[in-house]
């Protein structure tokens, strides 16, 4: 009855990943060749990455991850608060729904500009807030949906056991929503990383986004591709090794 990891499936998927990587590298080399080196070839980019000072590498990585994860956590906290409010009354449910629609329709670029205007170009706050505001609708939509579909049976059980409204939310709805939150978080953390890089590019003194735009302004195409590659590899590793596993683990919490 215990769930075990689908090892055979994982092995098959690793094979596909290897084939995919080989094809991607071939296309990369082909593009570099056909553009006469305007797009840097693989050895040039590898050399650039090897030349990055280790301290600089970890510092920029730290900044980007700090911005993205802090933004994600703020987004999650706000989403949980709004989801709780929406469970209190029909009015608040509609209100939260409308707020979510509005948040979804505002471009990230607008948020970047607003936060840069408010906090200044060198402030560390805009990338964090932009990540938070970008992940919020993803998390909130999933939470609202899962609350709507939390089984009627669960609500009846909570009532018969004498659970208060807060108990219902804390002990039943939130844990019952964990599988949905885990799936949404997988998307949201990826989004937070991509968005925080954009915000860093517009106004920041560090982070992968800053490094990409810095190298671009100097005309170092290998720097642009190198830092982008670092980000892509890290995002894939985090998604496949951590977030995917968390999502799978959270599946245990589906009602039986």
């Amino acid at each position, binding site marked *: 009855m215990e769930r075990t990891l689908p090892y055979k499936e994982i092995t098959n998927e690793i094979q596909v990943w290897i084939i995919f990587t080989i094809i991607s590298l071939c296309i990369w080399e082909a593009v570099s060749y056909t553009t006469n080196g305007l797009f840097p070839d693989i050895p040039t980019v590898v050399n650039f990455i090897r030349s990055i000072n280790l301290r600089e590498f970890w510092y920029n990585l730290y900044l980007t991850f700090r911005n993205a994860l802090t933004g994600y956590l703020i987004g999650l906290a706000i989403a949980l608060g709004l989801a709780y409010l929406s469970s209190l009354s029909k009015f608040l449910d509609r209100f939260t729904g409308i707020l979510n629609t509005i948040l979804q329709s505002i471009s990230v670029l607008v948020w970047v500009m607003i936060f840069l205007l408010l906090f200044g170009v060198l402030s560390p706050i805009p990338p964090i807030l932009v990540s938070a505001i970008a992940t919020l609708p993803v998390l909130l939509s999933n939470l609202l949906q899962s609350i709507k579909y939390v*089984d009627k049976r669960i609500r009846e059980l909570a009532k*018969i056991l*004498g659970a208060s409204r807060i108990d219902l939310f804390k*002990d039943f709805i939130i*844990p019952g929503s964990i599988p949905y939150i885990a799936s949404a978080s997988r998307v949201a953390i990826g989004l937070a990383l991509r968005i925080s890089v954009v915000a860093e590019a517009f106004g920041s003194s560090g982070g992968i986004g800053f490094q990409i735009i810095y190298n671009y302004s100097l005309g170092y195409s290998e720097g642009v591709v190198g830092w982008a590659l670092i980000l892509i590899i890290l995002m894939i590793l985090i998604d496949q090794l951590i977030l995917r596993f968390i999502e799978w683990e959270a599946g245990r*919490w589906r*009602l*039986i």
Partner: protein
Amino acid sequence: MEANLMARYAIVIKNLWKSYNGKTVLSNISIYVNRNEKIGIVGPNGAGKTTLLKIIAGLEDYDAGEVNINGRVGMVFQEDILLPWMNIYENIELGLKYQGVDDKVRRDKVYRIAELLGLTQYLDYYPNMVSGGTRRKTSIARAIVLDPDILLLDEPFTGLDLDTTNTLIKMLSIIPSKLNMTLLIVSHQFQELLQIVDRLYILGGVPSKIADEINIRNLGREERIIKVIKAFNMSKT
């Protein structure tokens, strides 16, 4: 309802009507359940048995009639609905936590009920690690740990193998008297039911009404079966 009459009864339902979307599901239901009595309600699937149980538990409204409940109600749902994020111990103690029962008292109560139902060895396990029978017992433990005066069970034998069903029958025959509880079970499996209960109400017809009421207290197993089969045949004609 007069107080002296209610003192005798645990549940009194008079002329109850219930409909969903304009379709009547329960018509003119009247049921009287004495304190500490074990009552069964049988009927085919879709006869409104669960609806009736939920009305008694206060989980559903009704259109007309009178429902009087004398005491605290505990309910065991048709599906076990155990919370997968809590272990068996935490699932059982949940209601006690909401009642604000002290930690030590809570622990003693959970262990006492777990022992009564043979769950002690599973208390640290999570619901997905135990058998269907253990899950069913856990959902019963979660209800009776709250010391209800009336215990409602919705299709308690569904999905269980023969051995577990027999164990459950034995438990449900003994435990309510031991804990001073009134028992009301709804099921479509009357053979299991009549080994436990003192009286049976048969739901039948469209919309459902009480087709018959059979007293089988003090009868042997075979006599019970014969009496109930006769009543079933009569209710069909």
